[in-house]
């Protein structure tokens, strides 16, 4: 069996989990395996149907009121009790903030190695093989697993969502036994970021600004652009973050986030190696820079040489026109 952990935030399934389930289903079919999904928490009724429609043949719901909020130790305990019972061959999670926190803890409990943040997964001679970036994308490495179950986390926004189907299946609800002493690291409170902006790791379009933006107030121009576009978020170079023009949550690069949106637009970013490492796997890259020799042009699919302050206003107008059509 191939088991996919499905993350729920504020009562909703994370898109990245559905991407992982879609990819998991594809792999399981190729390996002639059953696909199952597992939820952990409490009051999760009504979510299973979505897992069925993205390919799960079976859904496990591990319920305990102590798990209503995330706890890495508690969730590990719950998932471990299930894997001990059903012995999946492959265990996948999305490499979200939660997945990156939970998967290694569970891997240690299972005493298996973990491949983090994979960007490709394939079946070779009946065995799973993964590709993951090293050095924030400056190198790619392929791995095979020697421990079982095979455990990997998949990078959000890389694997396509499957077509939704009318699928149904069996839902198995289990009251899991997790004691107070196992939830010592339980989240007490979730503090929403200001403005409730979409996180760059989840955005399909990223509009980024660098030192060329000249000041924090000018990031509003980028926010306006991102407001016109679907699923867009504002990113930044480290120079802009270090100048405190924008929060470090928005930093793209080797010591920020590695992103792979459909479109990455860089305004006033030179293209330092640490910045490129975090965004070269974007599907399309656009750069606006007044310096024709800026290294960012070497990797951009479309470059505009010019003053970003002159280009953004007409760009905004043109975009509005096309989007409204």
């Amino acid at each position, binding site marked *: 069996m191939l088991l996919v952990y499905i993350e729920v935030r504020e009562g909703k399934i994370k898109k990245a989990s559905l991407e992982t389930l879609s990819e998991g289903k594809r792999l399981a079919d190729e390996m002639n395996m059953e696909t199952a999904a597992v939820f952990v928490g409490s009051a999760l009724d009504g979510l299973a149907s979505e897992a069925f429609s993205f390919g799960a043949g079976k859904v496990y719901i591990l319920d305990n009121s102590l798990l209503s909020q995330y706890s890495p130790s508690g969730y590990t305990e719950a998932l471990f009790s299930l894997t001990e019972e059903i012995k999946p061959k492959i265990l996948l999670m999305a490499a979200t903030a939660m997945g990156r926190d939970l998967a290694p803890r569970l891997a240690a409990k299972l005493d298996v190695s973990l491949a983090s943040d994979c960007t490709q997964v394939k079946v070779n001679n009946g065995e799973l093989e993964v590709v993951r970036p090293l*050095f924030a994308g400056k190198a790619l490495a392929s791995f095979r697993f020697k421990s079982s179950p095979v455990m990997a986390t998949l990078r959000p926004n890389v694997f396509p969502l499957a077509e939704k189907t009318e699928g149904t299946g069996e839902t198995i609800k289990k009251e899991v036994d997790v004691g107070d002493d196992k939830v010592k690291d339980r989240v007490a409170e979730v503090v929403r970021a200001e403005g409730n902006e979409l996180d760059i790791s989840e955005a399909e379009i990223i509009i980024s600004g660098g030192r060329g933006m000249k000041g924090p107030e000018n990031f509003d121009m980028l926010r306006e652009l991102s407001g016109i576009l679907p699923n867009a978020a504002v990113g930044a170079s480290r120079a802009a973050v270090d100048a405190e023009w924008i929060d470090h949550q928005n930093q793209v690069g080797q010591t920020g986030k590695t992103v792979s949106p459909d479109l990455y637009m860089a305004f006033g970013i030179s293209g330092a190696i640490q910045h490129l490492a975090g965004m070269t796997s974007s599907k399309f890259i656009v750069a606006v820079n007044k310096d024709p020799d800026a290294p960012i042009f070497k990797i951009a699919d479309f470059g505009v040489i010019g003053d970003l302050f002159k280009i953004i206003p007409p760009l905004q107008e043109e975009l509005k026109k096309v989007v409204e059509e």
Partner: protein
Amino acid sequence: MNIFVFVKRVPDTESKIRIDREHNTVIEEELNFVLSPYDEYAVEEALRVREAAGGKVTVFSIGPDEAKVTLKKALAMGADEAVLIKDDAPEAYDGLRIAKIISRLIKDKYPDYDLLLFGKQSVGADNSQVPAMVAEILALPQVNVVTKLDIDDNQGTAIREIEGAAEKVSFPLPAVISAQKGLNEPRYETLKGIMMAKRKEIPLISLQDLGLTEEELLPQLELIKMDNPPAREAGKVIEEEPEEAAKKLVEFLHKEAKVI
């Protein structure tokens, strides 16, 4: 307060990564190694906790002799002691291996601690595995990707970064914490610190001292191929009046990239 910090020696972020395709390894000549940037935040936080609550900061690294340079940097910042666990195995990108070494080290040789500090990920392997794995093996609470930490007696409160939000966690000590950018601003080494670090003995512990056999530590992830990513080719670059440039750019987004 007895604080342990785990630091890793990594190639600096400026590095171009060249690959030895025959052996599937990174060519280390010409690479400049530094203390992993997130580990620097961890060292700084340890020093701050010590300054507020008193106690001792010990830094550990697992790696070759060269990792002593990394440890000296942490000593120069102000750590009290440094220990090298000598391990000449090639990079395996397998966090479990390192987590097993660290856990055994703590259980057998350093069982007295209040706080274990890590970087949220090593720059390079970018795994984010070791802290959570150590926490599980030692049955400790964990808070990773922390941007704010308060320690009060035997209790800690941390803010951890997630997508577009933050989680607040209160936990009892001892605990595992991993540092994210924003946690603090690491201090520079002082001349006095550098001189003291130079003189400081760094004890060595071998994997045999920890009773770990090669077999127990064999990486369970088998690296089968390493490569540079396909190079991106430069596309079209235009230089025109702003209105014209904007039009062409939007046309590109609409017709070629098809994102709008």
